[in-house]
């Protein structure tokens, strides 16, 4: 179908799409993370197991993420801030989408770089102004893509990537979040 070599097994994804049309229960995934408080505002979050295709699954390796606040917040800066993880998630999701869509459309990528800026008024989280929200006021993603494609085709890759992005959806649409004490 395509000659592009972006390293995405699009055929497997298309096959999965067909297979899951008939068995929506297998499409139900649960992603998990467990977090331990260390000290101050430093925590470590571990990700390894998840559920999907009807059974427990596991990543090849366990990954541990440090989160902390920077020194300008009078913290030790043992890791990036939690809200920066949202940028990590968005950037990696959109980039994966660009590669997948390009593969599906037979577009060879040479380089894909994204720069993200999340505008954040910290008066919200400090409680300094109740009219200011806690989260981002806005996020700007700028892609620089070198590929065998016209500018319009590249713009279409980026648009389609957003259309099918889990993290873009999670950030742009409300999600029901339950937090409770076990």
């Amino acid at each position, binding site marked *: 179908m395509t000659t592009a070599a972006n390293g995405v097994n699009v055929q497997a994804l298309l096959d999965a799409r067909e297979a899951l049309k008939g068995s929506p229960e297998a499409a139900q995934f649960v992603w998990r993370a467990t977090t331990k408080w260390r000290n101050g505002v430093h925590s470590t979050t571990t990700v390894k197991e998840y559920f999907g295709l009807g059974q427990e699954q596991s990543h090849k390796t366990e990954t541990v993420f440090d989160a902390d606040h920077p020194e300008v917040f009078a913290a030790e800066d043992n890791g990036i801030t939690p809200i920066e993880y949202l940028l990590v998630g968005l950037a990696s999701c959109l980039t994966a989408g660009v590669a997948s869509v390009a593969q599906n459309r037979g577009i060879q990528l040479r380089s894909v770089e994204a720069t993200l800026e999340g505008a954040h008024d910290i008066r919200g989280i400090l409680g300094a102004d109740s009219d200011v929200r806690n989260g981002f006021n806005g996020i700007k993603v700028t892609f620089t893509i070198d590929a065998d494609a016209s500018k319009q085709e590249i713009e279409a890759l980026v648009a389609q990537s*957003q259309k099918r992005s889990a993290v873009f959806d999670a950030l*742009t*649409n*409300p999600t029901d979040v339950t937090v409770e004490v076990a």
Partner: protein
Amino acid sequence: MLERGEVANSWRRERWDSFRLLTPNWQTRLPGLSYEGPDPDGYMTMDEVTGFVERFAAVSRAPVRTRTEVTSVRPAADGYHVTTSRGEIGCRTVVIASGACNRPVVPPFHEAVPSSVEQLTPFDYREPGQLPDGGVLVVGASATGVQLAAELRRSGRPVILSVGEHVRLPRTYRGRDVLWWMDASGVWDQRYDEVDDLTRARRLPSPQLVGTPERATLDLNALTAMGVELVGRWAAVRDGRALFSGGLRNVFSLADLKMERLLGTFDEWAAATGRDAEVGPPERFAPTAVPASARLQLDLRGGEIRSIVWATGFRPDYGWLDVPVVDEKGRLRHDGGVVDGPGMYALGLPVLRRRRSTFIHGIESDAREVIDHLARYVAQGSNIRK
């Protein structure tokens, strides 16, 4: 032919007062009946459409039994047993031509809208005077949504339009109706078995078009210029507030890019077939302007919005069809109008056999092919396919 009401019933009863067809008059034709009036480039009003369909019923001498509502179709020994409001009928074959737009679709969270806000579907809406004074939230930016948003804005009301994925088109391109291009360039000739993603093609929202004497374009930029406020797709209601998606820019980009690609195919076709001299020079349109700050939420209890018009699409209603040919999404299982049940057929559904099937004039070739299959089925009395 069984008709629950009068000939052209849904055109008479299920459209708002100012409704006009999206197709120009010259394109609105049925086998043996074409527009012969003074305005081939105009668009029929509802009275004109019902008159047109009535004339077709007369010239084709279709054996229509009006005021005969079908309440059940179920399998019988040699075909189907049909129960109607006027008695029982046995038949070997059935052609379902009840359309794709029998019921307005409204998202489940409409139940969380405070009762102080009046809610209407396009089936309820006739004209702006019927709505309470004050702001209106129109949900959905297909043909219905943009037309009602424009009409309500012209009535002097503040209008907010919630925009999800949509299909942007200019009314005219290079001096011709954009639907002339769809027809002439062959886009509408694409067969259902050649379309990449048929499910998507069949679910495509109607394009942002309106048929007016001025042949004006009614895209989102036109609505913004009229003072309509654009917000993202309505995602949820929480604590009496409507929450809108922050993904507005991308639905604009998707629609702008698709329109550009379509206009590009028109230009390529015109160049390749030597039509460039007959039409105006290629045009390109300004990208959809992104509001400086589209709001992400709206307090439904604050009085800013007094009514909501749900232009969120339609679905077919097969509640009367007691034959297992409807999928889990409520859609008829069929292959180009040959339904997944012996001797059962469908006509008049979107992209039934071609992209043009969605439009009135698309019925001619569809009907010939589907009825050809039906005739062979009756002659052979066996399970032929395709």
